[in-house]
């Protein structure tokens, strides 16, 4: 039978995340801004220019071998930090079982970062979602379109300055106002003929 049940051990862990952070620091000394730790998880905060080079190194290095891009997202630190956006990459190595988080800083006036699709093809939709929600442009992405919101939506919903209730009704998405208008028209339709 093609499918077999295998026993996977529980207690094997890879490198200590702090050592990985040191390794990155050693490889890209001028790129790493800071290393943060919280609940045994280590974040390496880097500059955005060489972000993909760092990721590629993490992916290709035989000792690190971060083959699994767990998650790619962005955070809007408006009012909290000087540099407004951070693109967050959660990486995991299924072979060696270690985890690291890379946070690349993206300033507000130039929301651009290189795309990670050449490294992990799974980054495709994650990056589209980031673009959709935060307006961060991933240069080199094969097909950067809105994904969850309608194509002609205005604004970036997950930014902190976007109201929770959405835009005002008169500024709302045309698709929605159209539906409202049409339902109003149909309500007046004379069914009896």
């Amino acid at each position, binding site marked *: 039978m093609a*499918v077999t*049940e295998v026993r*996977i051990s529980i207690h094997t862990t890879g490198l200590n995340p702090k050592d990985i952070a040191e390794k990155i620091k050693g490889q890209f000394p001028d790129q790493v801004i800071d290393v943060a730790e919280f609940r045994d*998880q280590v974040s390496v905060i880097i500059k955005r220019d060489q972000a993909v080079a760092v990721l590629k190194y993490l992916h290709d290095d035989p000792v690190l071998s971060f083959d699994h891009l*767990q*998650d790619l997202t962005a955070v809007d630190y408006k009012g909290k930090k000087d540099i407004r956006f951070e693109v967050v990459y959660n990486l995991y190595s299924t072979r060696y*079982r270690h985890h690291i988080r890379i946070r690349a800083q993206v300033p507000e006036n130039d929301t651009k970062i290189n795309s990670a699709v050449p490294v992990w093809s799974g980054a495709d939709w994650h990056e589209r979602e980031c673009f959709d929600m935060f307006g961060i442009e991933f240069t080199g992405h094969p097909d950067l379109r809105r994904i969850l919101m309608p194509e002609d939506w205005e604004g970036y919903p997950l930014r902190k300055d976007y109201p929770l209730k959405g835009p005002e009704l008169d500024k709302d998405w045309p698709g929605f106002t159209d539906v409202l208008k049409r339902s109003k028209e149909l309500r007046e339709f004379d069914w009896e003929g």
Partner: protein
Amino acid sequence: MIQKEAEKIFETRELNVNMGPQHPATHGVLRLVLDIDGETIVKVTPYVGYLHRGIEKLGESLSYFQALPLTDRMDYVSAMSNNIGYVVAVEKLFGIEAPERAKFIRTIVGEMSRISNHLLWLATHALDIGAMTVFLYCFREREWLLDLFEMICGARLTVTYPRVGGVRNDVPQEFLESLWKFTDEFPSRILEYETLIDQNRIWLQRTVDIGVISAEEAINMGMTGPTLRGSGVPYDIRKHMPYDAYDKVDFDVPIGTKGDTYDRYRCRMLELRQSNNIIRQLIEKLPPGPVMVDDPKFTLPPKDKMMPITHPTKEIAYFILEKACKGCGMCMRACPAKAITGEKKAAHKINQALCVNCANCLVTCKFKSVTVVSGGKGLSDEKLAELAVAPDQLPEDIKQAQQLLVKQFEFIKKGPKAPEGDLYVATEVPKGELGFYFVSDGSGKPFRMRLRAPSFIHAGCLPRLCVGHLVADVIAAIGTIDIVLGECDR
């Protein structure tokens, strides 16, 4: 030669078929635009987002405890697993541990949810390929599991049973007995499904060597769960980063070799047996003890202590002490019944006829001007003014109840404060890896709540799985990656 000539004369182009968002086989509101040449797929463009409800944005405005029901609405087929994923992540963020019994119960219900999810997957996958009877056989067993969910929390689909710091309530003995009976019978039921499709020549022709994806490519595309393991990558978060009671049970992980639709199907079928086995082990080992963490910071105050105020048969009335009231208008705004009137900077008044005894004014007042009059229901304002005493001179039980009520109010309204930091916690839900990434700024609400939904990634893999196959294989591919659009669109 002739074909080339013909192409010069006639212009040919692919037929563009719009599959979905309303289509019997797209499992919700997935829309695929297929470019087909004859019956062969040339290009697939998936469109998602028809069910986008902005759960991530909503989560930013709710406290960690309030956002829990939102996770039910993501993958409504296995809501229990989502809840567990969420509470495990929040517990790690707060740095608390659920009691042992709660962990065991969560693992049990999580595996039940895995079985019920895989049953629904098998049912719809088989129905899409045309095996109608498997569909109803699977629903027979799923019904049993949903009834069991109903037994422990009253809900069948959107359960919200696990809580941060444990579970909502302990499981009754009948639940364990019925579940034990289920695990006894379930392996023979799996055989029943397999007799219908496992060695069926048509089923094999439809699944073997369809949608093949290699191990490297699968992991590179971000596939997780059984979809990834069908390609032969031994990545299971229950083993790699054990949470709850998974480090205390003994189970194997099914791994495929070829990475085709049939291998993924077999992986899930074997997972059903493993989950069944896990449940049996957990029921046998289930330890006694509390099911909720013993920390007032994470639990609502006990209801019976608040009874003197909240119980409807206690004939109490709320009254504003004229002397203490500064006329700030807070209570007026908080009153849902609009029973409080008064000018600014002058003492307010409660219209007893409109008052619904909600205690909102009591907890909002900062000047301790709102008091409770026992047995004051139906009395006139003058009479109440006679009977009313300042809040700190009230009887001890009412005073305590009042304090607890304020606490409860704060718990719901603000939520306990989380330490500052960011955290990514993944759990193995039936569909793959469900990750929660929290950025906490030290307040009671997440600064950023990110959901890594497996269905979203898997839907993105559809073009890779479909191109080059026939129209009918698109249906098999949608089935094999096991997506739920509620989770995909969030």
